[in-house]
C-alpha cells in the first residue's frame, strides 16, 4: 500500500514536470510575445528590445526554463505581467472563488444526476424514463454558455430574481457576516445552477446505464425475495454498487474544482481561475498561464490518486 502510494506520487510528480516542460516549450516556441501586444507603430525598436529585457525575454530559452523551473520548485511561480503581482498571489485569490462555485456546481450536478437516474429506473423504459432520457440528453448537448445565457435571460433579466454577474453586489462588498453571506449566496445561484444543469445530463446518462445493469443482478432479486420493497431494493441495494464507477468520475472532475468551468465563469463574470486564465490567455501573460496550468495539472494528478484510493476503500474487491 505504502509502496503503491509512493510510486504513484513519484509518477505524478514526473507527470507534472512533463506537463510543465511541455507547456513551457509550447509557450516559448510560439511566435510573438508580450511586447507585440504593446504593439504601437510609434514604438522604436530599441524600446521594444529594452522591454524584452525587462520581461527577461532576451535570455535564451534554456536559461529561462532552468530559472523558471528552479523557482517553481520552491513555490515561486514568478511575476504576472498582467496583474503586476506574484502569480501565486493571483492564483491564491482566484482559487477559493472557483472551489466555491465549482464545488457547489459539482454537488448539484451529482445530486441531480443521481436523482434523475433513480427516478428513471423506478419504471425503466416507461414514459417518465424516456422523457428524462431525452431531457438529460438535451442538457448534455446544450453548450454550457447557452445554459448560462438562458438562465441569465430568464432569471436575471426577464424576471430579475437573481443578480446577473459577479460575486458580491456593491453593497455586499462593504458588509460583513450574515448579510455578506446572503449576498454571496444570492450571486451563487445562477452560475451554480448553470454548472449543475450542464453536467447533470452526463451523470444521469452514465448512472442510468450502470444502475440498469445492477438492477438485473441476482442480489437485487434476492433483496426483493427477502421482502425489500422495490424502492428499497433500488436505493439501498443497487444504487451503492452503481455509484462505484461514479467515484472515478468524481475523481476525474476534481481538477474541475481548480480549473473551474471557464465558460460559466466568463458568462457570469465570476472572479475565479477560469476567468483569470482566460484573461491571461488573451493578454499572453506567460507566467500566469504556466502557473495556472501547472497547478491544474497537480489537481488532475491528485484527483486521479484520490479517486483510486477512494475506490479501493469503497470496493473491498480492489486491492492496491
Amino acid at each position, binding site marked *: 500500500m505504502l509502496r503503491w502510494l509512493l510510486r504513484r506520487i513519484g509518477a505524478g510528480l514526473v*507527470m*507534472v514536470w*512533463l*506537463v510543465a516542460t*511541455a*507547456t513551457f516549450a*509550447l*509557450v516559448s516556441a*510560439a511566435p*510573438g510575445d508580450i511586447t507585440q501586444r504593446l504593439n504601437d507603430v510609434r514604438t522604436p525598436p530599441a524600446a521594444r528590445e529594452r522591454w524584452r529585457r525587462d520581461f527577461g525575454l532576451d535570455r535564451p530559452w534554456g536559461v529561462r526554463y532552468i530559472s523558471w523551473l528552479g523557482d517553481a520548485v520552491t513555490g515561486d511561480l514568478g511575476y504576472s505581467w498582467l496583474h503586476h503581482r506574484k502569480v501565486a498571489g493571483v492564483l491564491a485569490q482566484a482559487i477559493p472563488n472557483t472551489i466555491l462555485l465549482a464545488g457547489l456546481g459539482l454537488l448539484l450536478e451529482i445530486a441531480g444526476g443521481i436523482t434523475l437516474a433513480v427516478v428513471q429506473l423506478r419504471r425503466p423504459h416507461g414514459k417518465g424514463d424516456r422523457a428524462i432520457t431525452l431531457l438529460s*440528453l*438535451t442538457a*448534455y*448537448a*446544450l*453548450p*454550457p*454558455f*447557452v445554459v448560462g*445565457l*438562458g438562465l*441569465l*435571460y430568464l432569471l436575471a*433579466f*426577464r424576471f430579475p430574481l437573481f443578480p446577473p454577474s459577479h460575486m458580491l453586489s456593491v453593497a455586499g462588498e462593504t458588509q460583513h457576516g450574515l448579510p455578506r453571506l446572503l449576498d454571496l449566496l444570492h450571486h451563487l445561484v445562477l452560475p451554480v445552477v448553470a454548472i449543475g444543469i450542464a453536467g447533470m445530463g452526463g451523470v444521469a446518462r452514465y448512472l442510468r446505464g450502470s444502475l440498469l445493469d445492477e438492477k438485473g443482478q441476482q442480489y437485487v432479486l434476492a433483496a426483493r425475495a427477502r421482502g425489500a420493497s422495490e424502492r428499497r431494493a433500488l436505493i439501498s441495494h443497487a444504487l451503492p454498487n452503481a455509484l462505484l464507477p461514479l467515484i472515478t468520475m468524481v475523481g476525474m472532475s476534481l*481538477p*474541475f474544482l481548480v*480549473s473551474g468551468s*471557464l*465558460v460559466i465563469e*466568463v*458568462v457570469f463574470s465570476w472572479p475565479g481561475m*477560469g476567468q483569470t*486564465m*482566460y484573461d*491571461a*490567455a*488573451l493578454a*499572453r501573460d506567460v507566467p500566469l*498561464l504556466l502557473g*495556472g*496550468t501547472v497547478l*491544474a*495539472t497537480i*489537481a*488532475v*494528478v491528485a484527483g*486521479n490518486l484520490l479517486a483510486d484510493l477512494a475506490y479501493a476503500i469503497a470496493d473491498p474487491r480492489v486491492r492496491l
Partner: protein
Amino acid sequence: MKRLPARAGALPLRLQLGTLVLALLAIVCTIGSLLSPDPAEIVDPRAAALLPPASQRWIVTLRDGTRLAAEAVRRDEDRWTILRRGGDQSLPASEVAGLELRQFWLGTDTLGRDVLARLVHGGRISLTVGVFSLLAALLLGIGVGMASGWLGGWVDSVLMRLVDGLMAVPMLFLLLLLAAVFRPSLGTLVGVLAFSSWMGVARLTRGQVLSLKQREFVLGARAIGASSWRIAWHHLLPNAVTPLSQDAVLRLGDLILAEASLSFLGLGVQPPVPSWGNMVAEGQTLLVEAWWLTFIPGLAVAVTVVAAALVADGMQEIARRLDAGR
C-alpha cells in the same frame, strides 16, 4: 462479422432519427449555404436591424444602389411612398430601380444581416471544423494507438506516458493555451481541437489492438507470413471499426461543442466569418433586446450534439444486440 438482420425497422429508432438529423444538417449547411443570400450582406443597417424572426420587409433598391427596407410601400402617380421605421418617406418613381419582398425567417442581427443565412454559413464552418478535426484526431489517435498496441515494449510505454501526460492537462486550459499561442485561423483551430482530442482515440485503439492481438486469426495471418503492415491494415483495423466509429460519432459532438465554446470565447473562428459559437458571442450583448441572436445558434449546436449522441446510442444498441445474439 455478422450481418444485421435485414428486416425493416431493425435499426433502432434513435439511430434512424439521429442519422436523419445529421444528414439534414449536412445537406442544409452545404447546399443551403450556396442558395442562401450572402451572410455578410448588409441591406439597411438602420431599418432592417434587429428584426425578430418571421419578419418581412420590402427592399427598395434605388438607382444609386442604396437599398431601403420598408414595412409597406405604396405607389401614387409618379411617387413611391414607403413606410420606413414607422415614418413615411416619399421617393420619386424615377429613382426607384427595383422592389422585392424579403422574408427574414430567423430575423436579423444588429447590422441587419440575415440570421438564417449566417446560421447556415456558420453551420457549414462549424461542421467542417468539427469533421476535419475529428479526421485529424482519428488519424493521429489510430496511428499512435496501433503503434503502441502492436509494437508494445518501450514504444508502448513512451507513447502511453505521453497520452497520460496530455490527458492530465485540463482540456479547456490546453485549448486556451494553444489558442492563445497560435493566433486563431481555421487551420490552427482544426489542429488545436484535434490535438486536444486524439488521446482518447489512441487509448481506445490500443485497447482494441491488445485484445485482437491474441486472437487466432491474427496468429494465423502471422503464421502464413503476413507483414506487420498487412496485419494492421487488413486484420486489426477492420475489427476495431465498430467501437472506433461509435466513439468517433460522440467525439464529433464533443468537438463541435468545444469549437463553439472556443469561438464563443473569441479564440476560435473569428468574425466576420460566422460560426455558431461566435454568433452567440455577438448576440449575448443584446440578450434582452434580441434573444434570437443568442438562442438560435445555441440551439443549432444542441441539435447537432443530440443527433450525434443518438447515433452513438443507436450504434451501441446494435453492438449490444450482436453481442447478445452471439
